């Protein structure tokens, strides 16, 4: 009876100690011990299941793919003959796209976070932006792909995609065209949109960890808001911001859906040379190989996954090292 009452009231805002006591009212000492132990057993069993699933996942992929790993696999282009195929084009494509994404998303994301945390007053406008960012974080990545396709790849149809306006020679590093088409720049900017909410939210959290007394001290000495932010707040929060940023980049490297919507060619035998070059990324190449029923492609997909996971692991190791270094530098 008592516990029923407590449950019915559990949606109210505060709980009095009386309710908490009522919630824990004993029925039978031994019975409750048994229930407790059984519950613990169930919890451990399901936690073990989650760990087991990860182990099965990694082991099965390693078994399928490790035989295909070789220097040749990293340095060869995709091929219809499975024994000659490799990940050179998607590996370089992923690196290009990730660098573009980082260069675009980090300044904009951190800038937004600084505006929201340091420069704006608690107003309706601020909570509107905040709500908007929370909602953007829930938008499926494939929808960002549609946005990237329309805005970057086709420039809203304002220019003819078949006959773009060009600047410079197509072979040159500085070659540009409008609209961007499905080149690495369009891919990187699309991924920027996907990860921007993550970068903003993690940077905001980082800025919030800086004690207010540091800001007050700087402001009291006559520093402007920006001088305070640039010299005091940002240096203190940069390790956390970098960690969040690298996490966001790992997400970007693993995304296939938005790139797929851009309409990148499926079969690529070149690495990017400029921002407009055709490209593919590792997850997309893995998808293409997984879709093929013929023998051999399955192993290629598994080997591609190992390369992708290795790239992610390297990136995360960088995050740990950077955090460690910067924390020491900050004293």
């Amino acid at each position, binding site marked *: 009876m008592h*516990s029923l009452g*407590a*449950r019915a009231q*559990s*949606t109210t*805002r505060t*709980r009095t100690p009386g309710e*908490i*006591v009522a*919630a*824990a009212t004993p029925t039978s000492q031994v019975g*409750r011990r048994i229930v*407790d132990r059984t*519950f613990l057993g*169930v919890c451990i069993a*399901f*936690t073990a299941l*989650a*760990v087991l699933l*990860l182990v099965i*996942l990694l082991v*099965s*992929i390693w078994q*399928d793919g490790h035989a295909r790993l070789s220097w040749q696999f990293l340095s060869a282009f995709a091929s219809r003959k499975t024994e000659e195929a490799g990940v050179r084009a998607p590996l370089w494509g992923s690196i290009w796209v990730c660098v573009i994404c980082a260069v675009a998303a980090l300044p904009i994301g951190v*800038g937004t976070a*600084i*505006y929201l945390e340091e420069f704006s007053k608690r107003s309706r406008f601020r909570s509107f932006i905040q709500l*908007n960012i929370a*909602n953007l974080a*829930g*938008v*499926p*990545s494939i*929808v*960002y792909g*549609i*946005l990237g396709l329309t*805005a970057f790849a086709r420039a809203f149809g304002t220019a003819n995609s078949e006959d773009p306006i060009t600047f410079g020679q197509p072979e040159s590093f500085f070659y540009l065209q409008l609209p961007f088409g499905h080149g690495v720049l369009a891919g990187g900017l699309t991924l920027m949109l996907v990860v*921007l*909410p993550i970068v903003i939210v993690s940077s905001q959290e980082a800025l919030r960890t800086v004690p207010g007394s540091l800001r007050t001290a*700087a402001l*009291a000495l006559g*520093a*402007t*808001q*920006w*001088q305070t932010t*640039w*010299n*005091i707040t940002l240096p203190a929060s940069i390790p956390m911001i970098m960690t969040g940023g690298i996490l966001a980049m790992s997400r970007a490297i693993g995304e296939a*859906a938005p790139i*797929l919507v851009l309409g990148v060619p*499926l079969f690529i035998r070149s690495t990017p040379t400029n921002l407009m070059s055709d490209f593919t990324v590792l997850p997309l190449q893995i998808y293409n190989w*997984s879709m093929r029923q013929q023998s051999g492609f399955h192993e290629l997909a*598994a080997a591609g*996954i190992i390369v992708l*996971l290795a790239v*992610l692991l390297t990136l995360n190791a960088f995050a740990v090292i950077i955090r460690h270094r910067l924390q020491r*530098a900050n*004293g």
Partner: protein
Amino acid sequence: MPHVAEISTATSRAAAANSRGTARSRAARIGTERVIRGSLLACALLSIVTTFTILVILLVQSASFFAMPQVSAWEFFTGTTWAPLLGEEKHFGIWPLIAGTLLVTSIAAAFALPVGLLVAVYLSEYAPSRVRAILKPILEVLAGIPTVVYGFFALAVITPFLHEHVSESFGTFNALGAGLAVGIMILPIVASLSEDSLRAVPRSLRDAAFAMGGTRFDVSTKVVVPAALSGIVASWLLAITRAIGETMIVALAAGGLASMTFNPAHEVQTMTAYMVQIFTGDAPAYGIEYKSSFAVATILFVITLALTVVGNLFLRAFREEYE
């Protein structure tokens, strides 16, 4: 410049910062400040521009889809046949795609929501700190694995397992294999977010319940979980949103046949998988199939947005506050 790092107190740092300030006159400093403030505001406004542009693109393209003579809005919202590519007569009834999405999401949720909560309760209430220190990174690894890897896992491991050990009726593509893979993908989201809200429950509440003779089970299920309910439900809603929007797993493992079925052994097509089919396929750009994917994307966007909004409201409205 480098000596700044060695100065430890905030005051001296601020003084150094001020002496380093480039603008000497007050007017120049205010000018710089304005420019910087403006560019920061521009960064913040980009997020609003993004939302606005998504809305405009989806609405304009959907409108032009519904304006086509072969399409009727009534059929789209009530029809139970989705056959945009096959046959002479094209049918655009959204329900088979929604049914497919719902089936895969339900399977994923049925697996991940309870299991995720149990893992969270174990981590927060039972696990010794040593075990926690091992398990948390494992969850982070699970959360960091790209979804295409789970798709491959569904295709290469889960489905063959179901075919051999559960029933012969599971084909290469089936809803259960894809649903379970999506479930594994969202499990770490539920586990780590729920754990955060469980740990946020004040210690005094647990102590009070323990003092009354409650077992750990009593304390967890009757005090801590109800107190953290808003955070737990928010984590569930976020996980469901991710499951609905998940693309690569279902494109690989669920198949490409839009059908009104709730049999988990059958091939189904989700909204996202249809979009993949159109954008990778030979559907002519600006054709009717192509435009239909924008209408599907609009529905997907509306559903996920609604869930995100409800999740945020839930977090705010039902948060239990102490002291």
